[in-house]
């Protein structure tokens, strides 16, 4: 089959990205045409686009297989992550209505950028080729750099955007160096071909491959905010508009983990014993640094940023396990994490008020009395982040550490679980504030829940509980999809 041949099946397999790009472009075009009074339409259109892409992703899975000469591959793994980032997108748009209205910043470009970023992440999830990974990474990143600085008049947002852009570019460069080394030494960029070249007769020097793998890990480690490449996360999450911070903590992270898993579990699987210690250390560092730093935070967004570093560490534990069960556990965990974290950010976004004034943990005081529903939903998210049974977060941790123990990573398991006790402390602080203190300014002034926010709180809460009580559905699918094409 010639490489430039494009069949109808290829286009179907490429459906979600196509829909998102078209919808994003339409939004850009509509921005100057539509009156700003009807700005709700932007949000509606972007929801329609995301829903259509979701349907497209599921339809694409009805015809699984490689597309565009093996550059993309639509398998269960790709579909899982496509659906995940699309759901993340929907859950980001829902609270954005109210947020953008409050900041007086409703435009089409916000939604267009969001759609482009998600298109990039869908591409990452499905790519089976290092150049495709790179392109997806760039599409996703460039849009999210702009999104982080979307509130142009906010100094913190500008700082966040600039920092994210500079460090992100460095990281992408590292990744690209790795790709170049692989291409130079194996003559291929297709993951399956790279794997064959590494494990074959004329394998290139292990030093080259090891260096390439290390460089790629640096690049992807940055994207998933794993220690020691986590420095940017707290500043960016704190500065970025809250719905964007929510999005950054779930969408790009999930997509980057998809890429990380696919590259390291297919192309670099033959040198697994080489990279395992590196990921081991990174996992432990991420959990420990994230959790201990989060203990000291008084700003909720910063605390959630450090918590997101720690959660990246938990997923890296699953990567360290180097098994299909580990891959499935990582997939499940990312889904659970997306729900609970986006939900938590939605509650923060609801409470922050105009100009994001109320972001201190103390501002949650008395929320349980003033807005029982918001408080109850946030309680579910916090308990899930702690890892209390009957929530998705618990099962995620359970599966991850089960996979780790099966791979005889006893110490990492013990240290990881003890880490989750440390984590319990700072999540509990929010519960303490909400239920055990008298209402303060923030909770007294909080406006009633808008329909979008209500949905953005209830849907993830339902998802979190569903994953906690009936995990089998998602886990079975993850388990079946964790066998990657090699």
């Amino acid at each position: 089959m010639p490489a430039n041949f494009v069949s109808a099946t290829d286009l179907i397999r490429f459906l979600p990205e196509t829909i998102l790009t078209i919808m994003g472009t339409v939004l850009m075009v509509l921005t100057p045409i539509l009156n700003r009074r009807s700005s709700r339409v932007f949000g509606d259109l972007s929801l329609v686009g995301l829903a259509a892409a979701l349907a497209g992703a599921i339809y694409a899975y009805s015809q699984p297989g490689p597309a565009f000469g093996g550059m993309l591959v639509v398998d269960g793994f790709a579909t899982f992550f496509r659906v995940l980032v699309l759901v993340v997108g929907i859950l980001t748009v829902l609270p954005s209505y109210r947020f953008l209205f409050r900041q007086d910043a409703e435009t089409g470009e916000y939604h267009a950028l969001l759609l482009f970023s998600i298109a990039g992440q869908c591409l990452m999830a499905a790519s089976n080729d290092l150049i495709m990974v790179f392109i997806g990474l760039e599409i996703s990143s460039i849009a999210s750099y702009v999104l982080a600085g979307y509130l142009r008049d906010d100094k913190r947002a500008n700082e966040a955007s600039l920092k994210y852009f500079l460090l992100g570019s460095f990281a992408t460069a590292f990744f690209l160096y790795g790709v170049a080394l692989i291409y130079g030494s194996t003559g291929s960029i297709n993951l399956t071909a790279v794997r064959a070249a590494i494990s074959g007769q004329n394998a290139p020097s292990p030093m080259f491959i090891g260096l390439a793998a290390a460089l790629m890990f640096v690049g992807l480690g940055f994207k998933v905010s794993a220690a020691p490449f986590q420095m940017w996360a707290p500043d960016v999450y704190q500065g970025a508009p809250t719905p964007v911070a929510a999005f950054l903590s779930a969408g790009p992270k999930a997509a980057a983990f998809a890429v990380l898993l696919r590259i390291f579990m297919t192309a670099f699987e033959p040198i697994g014993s080489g990279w395992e210690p590196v990921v081991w250390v990174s996992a432990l560092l991420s959990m420990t640094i994230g959790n201990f730093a989060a203990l000291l935070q008084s700003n909720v967004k910063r605390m959630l940023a450090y918590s997101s570093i720690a959660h990246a560490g938990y997923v890296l534990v699953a990567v360290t396990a180097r098994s299909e069960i580990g891959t499935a556990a990582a997939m499940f965990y990312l889904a659970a994490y997306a729900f609970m974290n986006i939900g938590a950010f939605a509650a923060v976004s609801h409470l922050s008020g105009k100009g994001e004034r109320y972001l201190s943990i103390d501002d949650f005081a008395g929320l349980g009395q003033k807005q029982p529903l918001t408080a109850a939903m946030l309680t579910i998210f916090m308990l899930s982040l702690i890892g209390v049974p009957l929530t998705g977060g618990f099962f995620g941790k359970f599966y991850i550490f089960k996979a780790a123990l099966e791979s005889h990573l006893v110490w990492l398991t013990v240290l990881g679980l003890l880490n989750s006790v440390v984590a319990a402390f700072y999540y509990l602080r929010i519960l303490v504030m909400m239920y055990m203190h008298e209402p303060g300014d923030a909770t007294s002034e909080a406006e009633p829940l808008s329909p979008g926010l209500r949905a953005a709180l209830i849907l993830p809460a339902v998802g979190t509980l569903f994953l906690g009580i009936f995990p089998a559905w998602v886990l079975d699918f993850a388990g079946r999809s964790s066998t990657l094409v090699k």
Partner: protein
Amino acid sequence: MSLLTVVLIGPLVGFLAALLIPRSLPQYSRAWALVISLTTFVDSLVLVGRFDRGQGGEQLGLDLQWITSPDIHFAISVNGVSLWLVLLSTFLTPLCVLISWHSIQNRVKEFYAFLLLLEFGLIGVFLAQDLFLFYVFWEVSLVPMYFLIGIWGHERRIYAAVKFFLYTMAGSVLMLTAIIYLYNRALTFSYPAILEMLTSGRLVFTAEEQILLFLAFFVAFAVKVPLFPLHTWLPDAHVEAPTAGSIMLASVMLKMGTYGILHFCLPLFPTASRNCAPWIAVLAIIGIIYGALVSMVQPNLKKLVAYSSVSHLGFVVLGIFSFTQIGLDGAVYQMLNHGISTGALFAFVGLLYERRHSLAIADYGGVATAAPWLSTAFLITTLASIGLPMLNNFVGEFLVLQGTAMANFTWAVWASLGVILSACYMLWMYQRVFYGEAGHEVRSHVFDLKLREWAVVIPLVAMMVWMGIYSQSFLAPVGKVTARVLEQTEVNVPFRVALPTHVEAANAR
């Protein structure tokens, strides 16, 4: 639906329905909690009736698949020990509802909802036969108690609640590691199946594995018991908790730990249990004496009762690790006794607090003249707590000491020191609170029992007397279970080291 499910699910349904009651109708929340908890109590009485006392194994089991991969089951059943612990939980919950009737005025709906959720978690812990399910209930019971302490507690409630949560969680993550490790070796979470594999020799742990797994489980349980030196969360949690919280915590939650040791640690890791027994016994004895000595100097009523719990629970652990039939029977009986008598002490201290709004012993004195009936009930409970014959604690302590003496006479001598000390601190406390000249505050504020309070006092006192006089009605099914546990600790001991000869002798009897 099986009877066991009804007992277990009743409080959960009650909890969910309680969430729907409007906040503006607190009276309905109270009434609903009372109805549900009484219904559950009646259900558990039916359960006692259906229970076959002649048989020692697990009964009335139910096994439904919950999650396919890994294979996790909703497996519950009841045995001669868990039967009484379930009954203890269902017996105390309505009393907790009654005792909080007036003292909880703030966020009433949530309070009763959490109380019912707590009951659900506690019953589940005692019934679960799947290790995973056990862990789920273990953690689920933690959350409502955290809120009960943190929202409705006294001044330092937040500190106490967080400390309680973190201590328990630190212990239980180690247990989770061990549970997953067991699963990876046995490929099942089913507790009976794992036991069967161990006895048939299809699953063998090396000595090192066994000791580490034992410790992982044991530390989780020891935190809950609490065994010295892991007890420091307990005085804080007990003192700060509202009365109902203290009662449930002391009477039932602590038993989760001792039940866990008896039900899981001993049969799963017999060699390690026996090897560690001397160390644990010494810690238990330190706990007995230390708890008693600290109680003696407490100026705070609730703290005194809390430290006395450390002391009493030391007896339970000592009895278990005596590895004698009598010691184990005594330990189980002491679990129930402590549940009744310490629950009663906390309830009565709560009644005093409602009247005088102080927990300092120095603020009382002469209560006996102001409230003779309350004083009488308190006296009976005090006497029960110090182990007066014909009252419940005597039977348990006697059996534990006898069993311990058979295993190691020195241990028994030291432990009996705790009995003497308990008489000192309890009677001294009673004297300072109830006798002497009634001050103005006491005379004007402390009144005698009201009808609702009688409804709390009478069942508790009646149980103390019944359990003291006719212990056989409870001990018969217990003995069947403890005999089986002892038998299980005998088999499958490939790495068993030589035991001290007197232990062998005692077991041979």
